[in-house]
């Protein structure tokens, strides 16, 4: 893969046919995508889909079987030390041995990166992280807070998070999502792997969907949601004729029972909402699509 032309800004991440086999077992195959500077990119897939394999290959912890990955225009294998100077990484389950405290871990990382601990202290206060107790004595969530600090404290240009909110309590999850927004504002690219569609929807600009080691789609989040069918349930104040709803393009599986109408809707929901609003409504629910429903959308399209 050629590097960026003079004057052209290199993508934060650019993979080309990235493939990793563990012996004969496929980890990922032909994964090609790019993440631009200042972009938050979600990497969505179920457990075992290849999200962590992709991340570990980007970090040069795994050597690709085929294909290549470039980070800021640098080769992920040959230039990995220079790349890692500019990135922050949070593994899925942050670990650093049992005996060392968060402060000891951060002190060593600060020395390796040639930075101070000012921002680490600031982040520890913000997250309520305990840097003094041995990491082995912390709960998973509190250990993950220390992990977040190790990823963020040196103000990297690219953040890589592997299932970052697992183990975090809801308040801390909110704090994390806010922080991702702040990092984007700063111009930092963020690569977040997750199996939570809700999390990806709230924070990401684009999303890559991976399953069985293959990247099956890369979409803007708004487009992804538009294409995915969602389940709707409306409780009208009085019985209504559902024919007008049924006639709206994208509406399917409609059933009406007394005042209650349920259906699925794909694409734009604007016409649906307007039609419903013509009648007095007691309750309205538009269910968030599950990850499986998202995958189903793409499988159906692939088979066509």
């Amino acid at each position: 893969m050629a590097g960026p032309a003079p004057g052209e800004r290199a993508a934060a991440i650019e993979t080309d046919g990235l493939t990793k086999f563990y012996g004969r077992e496929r980890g990922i195959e032909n994964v090609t995508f790019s993440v631009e500077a200042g972009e938050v990119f979600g990497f969505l897939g179920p457990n075992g889909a290849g999200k962590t394999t992709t991340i570990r290959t980007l970090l040069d912890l795994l050597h690709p079987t085929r294909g290549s990955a470039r980070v800021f225009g640098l080769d992920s294998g040959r230039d990995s030390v220079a790349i890692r100077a500019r990135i922050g990484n949070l593994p899925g389950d942050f670990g650093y041995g049992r005996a060392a405290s968060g402060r000891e871990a951060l002190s060593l990382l600060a020395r390796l990166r040639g930075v101070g601990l000012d921002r680490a202290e600031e982040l520890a206060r913000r997250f309520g992280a305990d840097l003094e107790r041995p990491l082995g004595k912390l709960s998973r969530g509190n250990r993950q807070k220390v992990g977040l600090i190790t990823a963020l404290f040196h103000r990297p240009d690219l953040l890589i998070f592997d299932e970052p909110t697992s183990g975090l309590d809801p308040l801390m999850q909110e704090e994390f999502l806010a922080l991702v927004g702040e990092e984007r504002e700063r111009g930092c690219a963020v690569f977040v792997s997750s199996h939570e569609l809700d999390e990806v929807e709230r924070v990401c600009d684009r999303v890559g969907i991976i399953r069985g080691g293959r990247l099956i789609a890369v979409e803007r989040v708004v487009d992804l949601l538009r294409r995915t069918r969602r389940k709707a349930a409306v409780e009208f104040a009085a019985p209504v004729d559902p024919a007008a709803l049924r006639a709206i393009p994208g509406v399917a599986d409609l059933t009406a029972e007394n005042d209650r109408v349920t259906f699925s809707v794909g694409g734009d929901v604007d016409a649906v909402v307007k039609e419903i609003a013509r009648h007095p409504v007691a309750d309205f629910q538009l269910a968030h699509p599950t990850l499986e429903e998202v995958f189903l959308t793409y499988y159906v399209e692939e088979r066509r």
Partner: protein
Amino acid sequence: MSGLIRSQLDERRRSLLAWGLPLGLMSALVVAIYPSVQDALATAIREYPPALKEAFGIGELSTVEQYLEAEMLSLIVPLAAGYLAVRSVASGLSGAAESGRLDVLLSAPLSRRRLVASGFAATAIELASVLAVALALTLAGSLLAGAGLSVGSSLAGFANVWPLALLFAGLGVVVTGWSLRTSVVTGSVAGVLVAMYVADLVGRLDPGLDWIRYASVFRYYGRAIEDGVDPVAFAGVTAVAVALAALGAALFERRDISV
């Protein structure tokens, strides 16, 4: 790199107590009881078959240095130090991989070669520290019991263990190039350690099998407490240990970091 070495040494502080203290106390006990058993020993040793004495480095046991050599420095200290060496190097690499620490460190701008070099250096310092603690306690035991152990000779005896043990650390790094499981690294190298000791023993017991000793680092170990440190053997074994660590670092660089 010094920060990385210091950090690893901080974590291994306990080994000074866990390894240096028992080895030192055992050695101190050996030299402390020597004056009271000296005569009985001399009589008993005269009855031993010469081949057995040669094989186990028993000698005449007419000095406290010879007694310390036979009881501690010919078997227990080198085997314990060799095992400590591989355990130490494994904890810095395969142990770190198992705990997730390696992922964190290798997310920083740190090359794998530098990581391996610092782990090996930390092991070398840890070994020297443990041997120094054992030596200090041994000398203290001699002083208290009035055994008259020579400082220079015992220094040579304990110092001579260092390159031998370091070789097994180097071997541990090589195995880490293939496996990041601590049990595999320590188990296989401990097996080699014992096999090398047995090969040297067999070669010494049977002159017809002397050639087998060339496969063992114990052939180059000698009896430094009596004969002084052989500088060629000391430097040679140290060089082989460093070469093995360098080979291991090259293998480690090529491998995937996954347990």
